[in-house]
């Protein structure tokens, strides 16, 4: 691991300014993904700004009856929160399907959104990877790509976003609240937060350098059957091959987002009017333009069948 200096931020503004003005500085919160990557020297910060003391660890009701989740709320606490379990069940379910109990106790809401892909070529510095080293190529394109993206990918990168939580946030229309070094705040709809890889797969979100996530807000609850179904190679503690986050209303209408298939949580709103016509109709629209490899082609029928199981569960 590369040597780094360390400071505890005293205010959010200080933290944001410190990252913006210090070369190769990064925020650290839960650290479960960042330290993993620092040990492998995939992340090589020279300075860490610990934001754990900034007090963004509360979950509060918003004026319109939604929920404001502090950026530092741990995944365990978010999953266990009474209102999340009651009103945003898809989020609680997504959280407990990810990682392990130990990791969920440390991992934060903002950090979960910012976690990096688990593509093995990204993780292996001996392999080419445009995300780790822009311009070096993509080892996965012609390599072992069973886990990789089937839609929205590019010739530069076919990695997937690994988060379960983010898929639920997408179906819930969450908003990411941030603070910039100049003191300005902004609200980024979750749909616009993560980027597709294009020619710049090293840019994963639309955050500016030094911009600090302060909270994630959820609109007021919309009810319905809220289901998160994750398909993976073992029953627990593994990343999704495919996952489905869905909110299905009694009349059959609803929303759906897919995980494990793209560089960001994959939701196509134009596919949702087909919800009452079943999984095939929705999947055909949601995966229009999909481009699978020989190894990951199974993800397309798997996504449709997982959605079919979710719709059957919602009706039951």
């Amino acid at each position, binding site marked *: *691991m*590369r*040597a*780094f*200096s*360390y400071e*505890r931020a005293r205010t959010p503004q200080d933290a944001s300014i410190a990252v913006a003005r210090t070369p190769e500085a990064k925020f*650290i919160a839960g*650290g*479960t993904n960042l*330290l*993993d990557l620092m*040990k492998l020297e995939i992340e090589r910060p020279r300075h*860490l700004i*610990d934001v*754990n003391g900034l007090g963004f660890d509360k979950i509060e009701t918003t004026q319109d009856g939604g929920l404001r989740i502090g950026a530092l709320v741990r995944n*365990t606490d978010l*999953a*266990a929160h009474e209102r999340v*379990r*009651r009103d945003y*069940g898809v989020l*609680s*379910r997504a959280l*407990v*399907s990810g*990682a*392990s*109990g*130990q*990791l969920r*106790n*440390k991992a934060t809401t903002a950090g979960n959104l910012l976690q990096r892909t*688990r593509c*093995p070529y990204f*993780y*292996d510095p001996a392999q080419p990877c445009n995300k780790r080293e822009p311009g070096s190529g993509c080892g996965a394109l012609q390599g*072992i790509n*069973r*886990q990789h993206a089937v839609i929205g990918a590019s010739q530069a990168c076919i990695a997937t976003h690994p988060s379960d939580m983010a898929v639920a946030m997408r179906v819930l229309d969450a908003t990411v609240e941030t603070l910039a070094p100049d003191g300005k705040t902004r609200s980024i709809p979750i749909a616009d937060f993560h980027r597709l890889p294009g020619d710049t797969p090293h840019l994963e979100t639309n955050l500016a350098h030094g911009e600090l996530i302060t909270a994630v807000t959820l609109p007021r609850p919309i009810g319905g059957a809220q289901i998160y179904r994750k398909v993976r*190679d073992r*029953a*627990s*503690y*593994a*990343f999704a091959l495919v996952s489905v986050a869905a909110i299905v209303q009694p009349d059959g209408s609803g929303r759906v987002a897919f995980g494990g298939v793209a560089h960001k949580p994959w939701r196509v709103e134009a596919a949702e009017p087909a919800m009452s016509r079943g999984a095939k109709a929705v999947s055909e629209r949601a995966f229009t333009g999909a481009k699978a490899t020989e190894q990951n082609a199974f993800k397309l029928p798997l996504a449709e069948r997982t959605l079919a199981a979710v719709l059957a569960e919602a009706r039951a």
Partner: protein
Amino acid sequence: MSAAHEFEVSRRGVLVVGASAAAAAAAAPAAAQGQGAEPPVIAKVSLEVNGKRRALELDTRTTLLDALREHLHLTGSKKGCDHGQCGACTVIVDGRRINACLTLAVMHEGAKVTTIEGLGQPGALHPMQAAFVKHDGFQCGYCTPGQICSAVAVLNEIKAGVPSHVSGDITAAPQVSVDELRERMSGNICRCGAYSNIVEAITEVAGRTA
């Protein structure tokens, strides 16, 4: 978490990698003393470990696990994968189980850390330690300190109402069951495969303390 589980690795390959990782770990303190191009940054941190105040001066890169093992000589917590995948390093910090390998010691100023040594000692075992012995909840024993710290915290998490992936109704209070324990303990790997006895040990303690 698994980054490369889709690559097949031979048993011999694992042993070779394991040996080089051990050699690298042995050499690490020397490298951390400034033989590299970039000098280490030293910081002070004060922790309460198993009820005792401990003040340390550490290279900022030192994980909580390395601080416990290499600096405080509490070698009960084990280094398995050093990447949060195996759970052998599990300790309880401010009442919560975490992977000590994936957090920096300097991030825990003032924290209360409980390691396996703090749970119980020979002659005065914690009920979970005693139950692991009684039910043969281990074979080689390497993962056991992490398993036991994790198990103690799991029962507290169930009591606190933290749901799990296998909880039927997430709005209801979770119950202790074999399925719940297996799911909640999935971050602790046991290569000897003592899982069924581990579940029996935890179940017995849950019954006793319920």
